Each structure stands twice: as C-alpha cells, then as structure tokens.
C-alpha cells in the first residue's frame, strides 16, 4: 500500500514542473512591471530574454525527465526562481548587461546539465581529494600573479580570461567543499576521539591539527593580499562548519572563530583596506566618509528606508543612486522596490534552499556525501548571510555576490553546478533507500 503510494511520484517530475510554472508567472510579472514603468527605455531584448530563460528552464526539466533522473524536484525551481528575480533586477538596474546575464544563465544551465551527467560515481571524487585541494589553492593564488591577475574595485580576486575576467574564488568554493568532505571523512575519528584532553578540550595529535592551521593561514593570506574579506569569512566559515558537522566538537568551531577574530583584529591594525572597510561600516555618516567610501552604503540604507513594508513597486524606485547596485547591492534594490515583504520572501527562498540541502545531507548514505551536501548548501547560506548582512549594515560590507540573483557570471555558473551536485546526492540516497527504480 505504502509502496504503491510512492510509485507515481517516482515516474514523472510533476512537482518540479508545477513549481516551474510558478517561476514563469513570477518572471513574466516582474518583467512586465519593470518594462511598463520604463516605457521610454523599451528594447525588444527585454521581451525576448525572459522567454528564452523560461524555455531554458523548461528544457532543463525535460532533460531531467528524459534521462529518468530521480531525486530532488524542489532545488531546481528555487534556483530558477532566484535566477529569474536576478534577471528582472538586471533589467531594472543595468539593462545593458541583460544579454550578458542571459548568456551566463545559458552557460550555467549547460554546466548544471554536465554536472548531472558527467561524474558517473560521485563518491569517486573523494579519491582525488589532494588534487582538488591543490587545484583550489592554485586558483586561489592565481589572481595574485602579475600577468593574469586583476584588481577591480579594490579587491584582487579576478583573473583575465579573453576579453572578460572571472572570479576563480567561485570555483574554489566547490573544490574546497569536496576536499573538506573527503578529508574529514577520512580523519573524522582521529579528530573527534582525541586521546588527550586538556580540561574539556580535546587535543588531537599534532599532525591532524596542521590542516586546520593551514586553512587559517591561507584564509588570512587571502584577506591580506587579495583584499577580500568576504572570501576569507566564507572560506574559513565553510571549513569550520564542516569540521563541526564531522566531529561534533564545538571546541574546534570556537577556537576557529577566536582565530578568525584575532586575525581580523591584527589585520585591522596593520592594513589600510581592512581598516577602511570597518570604519565605513561603523560610521558611514561621518563628514569625511559620507561622500567617499560611505556613500554606497548610505544610499543603500536610504533605499531600504524608501522601500517600507510593500515597497515602492518594481521599476518605481531610485536604486540607481547606489553605485554598482547591480552586483553589490541587489538586495537593497530589491528591498526598495518590493519592500520588506519581498525581501522576506527572498530570504525565505534561501532558507528553503538550505533546509532542503540539509535534508539531502541527512539522508545521504555515506559520510562523504553527507558532508558534501551539507557543505554545499552551507556555502549558499553563508554567502547570503554575509552579503545581506553587509547590505543591511549589520556587518562590514564585503564583495560577495547574492547567490543566483546578483549580476555576475562565475557566481551564477558555479551556483548552478552546486545545485547539480546536491541533486545528484539526493538521487543516490533515493536509490539506496529503494524508493528509486523497482
């Protein structure tokens, strides 16, 4: 009886299709609202782009049905919904970048499909963990190299590729999560069942502490040389979260946070760029900052205030007053035009994404897959937290992108790959549980 009830769900992907139809209505309404307000700057691309995007999402759905993919049906619609909101905002805030963002979403969809198809055995990824670590570190230091590295808006985190530039950090995130998951799966026991204890604190054998310290050193180097505090927090945060998940020792997380704060304080004393960020955060309204580094943040706050409860309406606000609004301050722009109501809905979508990701992690059959799924969903959550916190002036502003929504190619592509990996993990658990093909 129960077994029979489960079968119809396994056949099609109707949940996904139904949710994608909702995404389509949201995207179309959003574009109509923006275009109707700005009739002066109307261009035919604005009509074509949402349609192409929706066709793209539909084809991803058909692709998944075609290969008889079983597994999660909720992550794809959430990612599609967020990307659609992103396209609406790009049209609103920087309409000349719209075609670029669309091409990036096409590439992202391709990367997603490749992630679903290519690694035949996801667990095999664990075998090449040192390769991933090496590749990750290489990509991380690549922007520092003289010829290919680039400094944009004060952060040296880009590398030149052809005419454009990409942010290698985005790819590093995924590589590092794979590495951490494999590493922690192997050494979890040693780290969590330490022989010696000093008071309540476990003291694992020194060799096993080396990676933790190494991670910290690398994170600090990124902060100092690449001038990117966001990447530092994200990088170290993911590592600590996964370490805590794997070992269950709060001590590691606490000591890690203490190290991070200490590093931050030292960096604040020594380096001008860190100092500038923190000062801007603490007193953006000061005489000397108001029209300088604080200007962007202040305009963001005004946008939030202007938005109120239900916002001034899509297309009706003045978010263009915020410099570089399309990449750094999309959240404030959205909150101005869709209000607190819209902003909360947006955050709730990220929350559901995290919830779903953690459920997939809980149900995964092996430690590696569990840590992989948890780490990947945590990336999205932490990234959202850091940039939204920055936009709301709760923490110093950093140059991290709002996942799926903010304008930016590398970010979009890697986030879609991340969704692909999460869906693969859920598929493996489904098969193991006997809910799959029978």
């Amino acid at each position, binding site marked *: 009886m*129960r*077994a029979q*009830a*489960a079968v119809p*769900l396994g056949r099609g992907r109707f*949940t996904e299709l*139904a*949710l994608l139809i*909702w*995404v389509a*209505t*949201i995207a179309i*309404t*959003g574009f*109509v*609202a923006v275009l*109707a*307000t700005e009739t002066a700057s109307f261009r035919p691309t604005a009509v074509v782009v949402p349609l192409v995007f929706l066709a793209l999402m539909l084809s991803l759905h058909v692709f998944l049905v075609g290969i008889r993919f079983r597994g*999660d*049906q*909720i992550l794809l*619609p*959430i990612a599609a*919904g967020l990307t659609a909101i992103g396209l609406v905002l790009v049209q609103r805030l920087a309409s000349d970048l719209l075609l670029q963002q669309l091409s990036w979403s096409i590439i992202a969809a391709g990367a997603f499909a490749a992630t679903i198809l290519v690694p035949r*055995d996801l*667990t095999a990824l664990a075998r090449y963990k040192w390769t991933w670590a090496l590749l990750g570190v290489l990509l991380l230091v690549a922007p520092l190299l003289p010829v290919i590295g680039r400094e944009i808006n004060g952060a040296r985190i880009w590398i030149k590729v052809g005419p454009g530039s990409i942010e290698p950090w985005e790819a590093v995130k995924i590589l590092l999560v794979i590495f951490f998951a494999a590493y922690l799966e192997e050494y979890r026991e040693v780290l969590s069942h330490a022989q010696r204890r000093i008071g309540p604190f476990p003291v694992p054998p020194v060799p096993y502490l080396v990676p933790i310290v190494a991670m910290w050193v690398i994170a600090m180097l990124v902060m100092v040389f690449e001038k990117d505090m966001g990447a530092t927090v994200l990088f170290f945060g993911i590592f600590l979260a996964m370490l805590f998940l794997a070992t269950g020792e709060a001590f590691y997380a606490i000591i890690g946070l203490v190290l991070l704060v200490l590093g931050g304080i030292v960096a604040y004393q020594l380096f001008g760029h860190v100092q500038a960020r923190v000062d801007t955060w603490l007193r953006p309204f000061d005489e000397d900052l108001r029209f300088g580094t604080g200007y962007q943040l202040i305009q963001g706050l005004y946008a939030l205030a202007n938005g109120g409860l*239900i*916002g001034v*309406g*899509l*297309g*009706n606000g003045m978010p263009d007053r915020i410099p570089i609004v399309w990449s750094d301050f999309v959240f404030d722009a959205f909150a101005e035009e*869709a*209000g607190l*109501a*819209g902003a909360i*809905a*947006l955050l*709730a*979508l990220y929350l*559901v994404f995290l*919830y*779903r990701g953690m*459920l997939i992690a809980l*149900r995964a*059959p*092996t430690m590696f897959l569990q840590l992989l799924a948890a780490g990947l969903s945590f990336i999205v959550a932490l990234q959202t937290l850091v940039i939204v916190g920055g936009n709301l002036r709760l923490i110093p502003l950093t140059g991290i992108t709002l996942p799926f929504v903010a304008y930016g190619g590398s970010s979009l592509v890697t986030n879609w790959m991340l969704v692909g990996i999460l869906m693969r993990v859920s598929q493996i658990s489904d098969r*193991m*549980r*006997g*809910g799959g093909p029978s």
Partner: protein
Amino acid sequence: MEITFAILLWGVRILFLVLLYLFLIRVFSSLQRSLATENDIAARPSGLAHLVVQRTVRGAFRVGDRLPLRAVNGLGRDAGNDIVINDEAASARHALVEFADGEWWVEDAGSTNGTVVNGEVVRSRERLQYGDELAIGRVALRLEQ
C-alpha cells in the same frame, strides 16, 4: 486614461509580490509532501538487504536474527561498528560490507583472523551474491534480500 494605467501598473506590482508568496507556499507544501513520501519509504520494514545469522557464539547474536544492512556497513567487535560482532575471534574493525554499482561487496578491513566467504578467504574486495555465507570469527552470516 492615465489613471487607469497607473492603477493597472500598481496591480502588476502587487501581483508580483503575491505570486512570490504563492510560489513560496507551493515550495513549502511540495517539501512537506516529499518529506512525507520519503518517510513512508524509510518506514518500510525491509532495509536494503539483511544478514541472517547462521552460526554464532554465546554473547553474540541468536541464530536466525536478521540484521538490516545500510549502504555501507562496518562489521567488527568495536561498539562503533554498524554490526557489532561480540566474539573474541573477530577484530575490532573486521570487515566492510557495502552496496555499490547495484551490487553487494565485502572487503576485509585488515582483520587478524580474516574474512571468509563460502569457505574462501577474502583477498581484496569481493562481490557478494544473495545466499552467500560470510564468516567472521566464529560467527556466520548469510546475505538475504
């Protein structure tokens, strides 16, 4: 005419918010439904497969016990194993039984007395068929669906 257009525009803006929330509600309810289905599947009595105890020693299992298997199972004397074998002849971490690529596999985890399948010592990683008998220490287990 101008006024009606403005009202229409506001209608669209509000509609956007409403749709956003309806989407959110739909996502929530889908999540709820898929959770319920998954729980149903998990609650089904049969695991992936079972090891049925054929031969045992005092203090360990009883003959005929059905031990449910997960995707990856550690077998041995240590309490951290998925299947704890309370026999001095078994090593702390004795063997590993796992489901991969649609088949069952057994691997010796460096045990002192070795792992035996159908009377033959397991050299590396060997395939297990349903009905095969796995001997660890003095305990014998048969793989059944």
